[in-house]
């Protein structure tokens, strides 16, 4: 594993008007690492992820991608950043006006300037990989939640990213569908994909994550290995939170 960080976050701060959502965030993501981010609702987890691929502009501080300041990126570099750093959303956000196949082909054709044939081949391969090749020509609204999220992952993969951001990918799913999505994510991690995953799936975190970060009040209050984080949290806020999510499960 090369030991140059893929992403470095330094003193990241994000305000919405007067509300300080991220007060001071520091962190490093090495290539191939899987980081799980946990924390109470409203603690800024989504905002943090969105600052990584510049869907949100940080108020101050830096996000470095391969050592380069993403805030100084030109329009082109920004496109490249997003090509290399895919994102999967809680509510899937598949394009309902396009078929599953077209959802996967759109960005490779428009952004990577891939030929229609190549894009289609690639898309079909990815659909097969997430077990949905027979759904290629249906529209998203006929998919179940689990299927939709697997398509969304395949769509992100169609850009050949080196890194994926997941924002609570399973929390909008019926319980019986969580497993199929996590299985796909596990496979990705095993193949060496760098991932930052906002999730409260403890099992997944314990099995796959290198590190778990606990976010609250605009700070990362604790960084720890999954086992330590869930079994022996140090920070009292972490303890409190962990006991709550364990209680819920």
């Amino acid at each position: 594993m090369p030991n140059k960080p893929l992403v470095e976050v330094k003193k990241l701060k994000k305000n919405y008007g007067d509300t300080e959502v991220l007060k001071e965030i520091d962190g490093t993501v090495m290539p191939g690492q899987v980081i799980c981010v946990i924390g109470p609702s409203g603690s800024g987890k989504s905002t943090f992820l969105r600052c990584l691929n510049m869907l949100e502009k940080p108020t101050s501080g830096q996000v470095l991608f391969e050592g380069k300041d993403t805030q100084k990126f030109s329009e082109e570099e920004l496109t490249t950043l997003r090509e290399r750093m895919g994102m999967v959303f809680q509510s899937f956000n598949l394009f309902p006006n396009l078929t599953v196949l077209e959802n996967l082909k759109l960005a490779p054709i428009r952004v990577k300037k891939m030929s229609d044939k190549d894009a289609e081949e690639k898309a079909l391969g990815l659909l097969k990989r997430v077990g949905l090749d027979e759904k290629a020509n249906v529209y998203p609204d006929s998919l179940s939640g689990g299927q939709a999220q697997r398509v969304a992952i395949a769509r992100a993969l169609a850009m050949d990213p080196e890194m994926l951001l997941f924002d609570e990918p399973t929390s909008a799913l019926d319980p019986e569908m969580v497993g199929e999505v996590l299985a796909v994510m596990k496979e990705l991690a095993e193949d060496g994909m760098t991932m930052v995953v906002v999730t409260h799936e403890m099992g997944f975190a314990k099995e796959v994550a290198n590190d778990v970060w606990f976010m609250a009040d605009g700070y990362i209050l604790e960084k720890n290995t999954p086992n330590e984080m869930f079994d022996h949290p140090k920070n009292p806020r972490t303890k409190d939170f962990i006991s709550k999510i364990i209680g819920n499960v």
Partner: protein
Amino acid sequence: MKVKGRNVLLTVMTLCLSLLFLFTIQPSHSITTTTAYAADNSLQRVKARGKIVMATSPDYPPYEFQVSKNGKSEVVGMDVDIMKQVAKDLGVKLVVKSMSFSNVLVAVETGKADVAMSGINPTPERRQSVDFSEIYYNGGQSFLINKTDAGKYTSKASLAHKIIGAQTGTLQYNLAKSKIPGAQVKGMDKNTDLVLALKTHKIDALGIETPSAEAYVKNDPDLKMIKSGYSLNKNDTGSAMALKKGSGTLVAAINKSITKIKAKGLPNQYLAQAGKYMKVNTHNTSMFHYWTYFAKGIEYTLLISAISVIFGVLLGTILALMRFSKSKIFHAISIAYVEFVRGTPLMVQVMFVYFGIGIVVNLPALLSGIIAVSLNSGAYVEEIIRGGINSVDKGQTEASASLGLAKTDTMRFVVLPQALKNIWPALGNEFVSLVKESSIVSIIGVTDLIYQLNIVRADTYRGVMPVFVAMIIYFVMTFILTRVLNYFEGRMKHAK
């Protein structure tokens, strides 16, 4: 930040408005300057073109009115016959352009027509804005009254303190106002409407030229004509042709022709001829007899609405994209346009496009109508599309951006298709309302349903029935359109 944006917006809006004003004022300057610099070549121009264009309001029998000749609608009457003779003397062809009376002088001033001829009295006020030919006919002034009132109203004096109707902007209107003590004068644009008002006792008498009055009396046994009893300067009451200021050479040539025509006693011959037309015409006043008129009107109304809704959607999309654009200027222009168009009546816009823009490029009435209605519709469609774009979930834009898609691609492939699907019903409604609202283009002589309706009314001397028929036609059109649109909307919901 917000305040600053506001300021930019205000500046741009003021700018747009002042530009518009400049634009509207400009023409009068340019006319005076062109006449000052260029020698009068009006006659030369008409001869070079090989045709002379006459603006008229064909709702004034026997001066000018519409008849159907071999199934085709045509403007006939004394004025048309005289003008035909004049054209012949000039060695050119005659083209007749129909429009409402209040627009015929404007048409001459703005160069839409060479001559306005519509039983126009050359009053001193009018002489300030146009040149007049010699008087070609002096019909005299009369009143039309209901036969049942024949005992009550016998002269001008007996009409004191009564309600007198007259066409707006006519000599009759001014005379009633100034010469009948205590009279309340009610102005309308069309004599057909005034006759209807008279018959329904909304007015007590109608001031009208004698030949017209005679025509109405001949065709309607309930009406009676009485002499006006105005003592008038003959020069102010006869009918003359109006021409653009500074058309001296053309006026001179026309006057020569008029002298000849009068010497031969042609006007009275033409009047008799017009009377014959009217007899044929009033023979069958059943609405079925006029179905070709209504059919033509439907065709134009649908044509205008359909084309306008297409261009309206194009323009509305562009305006909506400008509104969402990062550029403050685009954003402000879009807002200013929409506010301005929504804040002015369609009728004024139609007239502005036809007469105002017509000074720069001579647009035919139908094209002007389509342009005006499209420009108007664009503003309303912009709001619909903007609503549609806003209705698309923010997650869609984010997902698209997270894949590296450019803003324009996101708009084109993700947001707009979804927006258009959401607003399909609203766009359908816009189309249906255009079918109704486009009726306003009849004022510049576009032969839509309303225009045809007025022709049928003038033609049959029946005030209400054609209106009723048109109302039913409009309703059937919008009703069917709504069903068809609903059907497609349902289909779009199922299949995609």
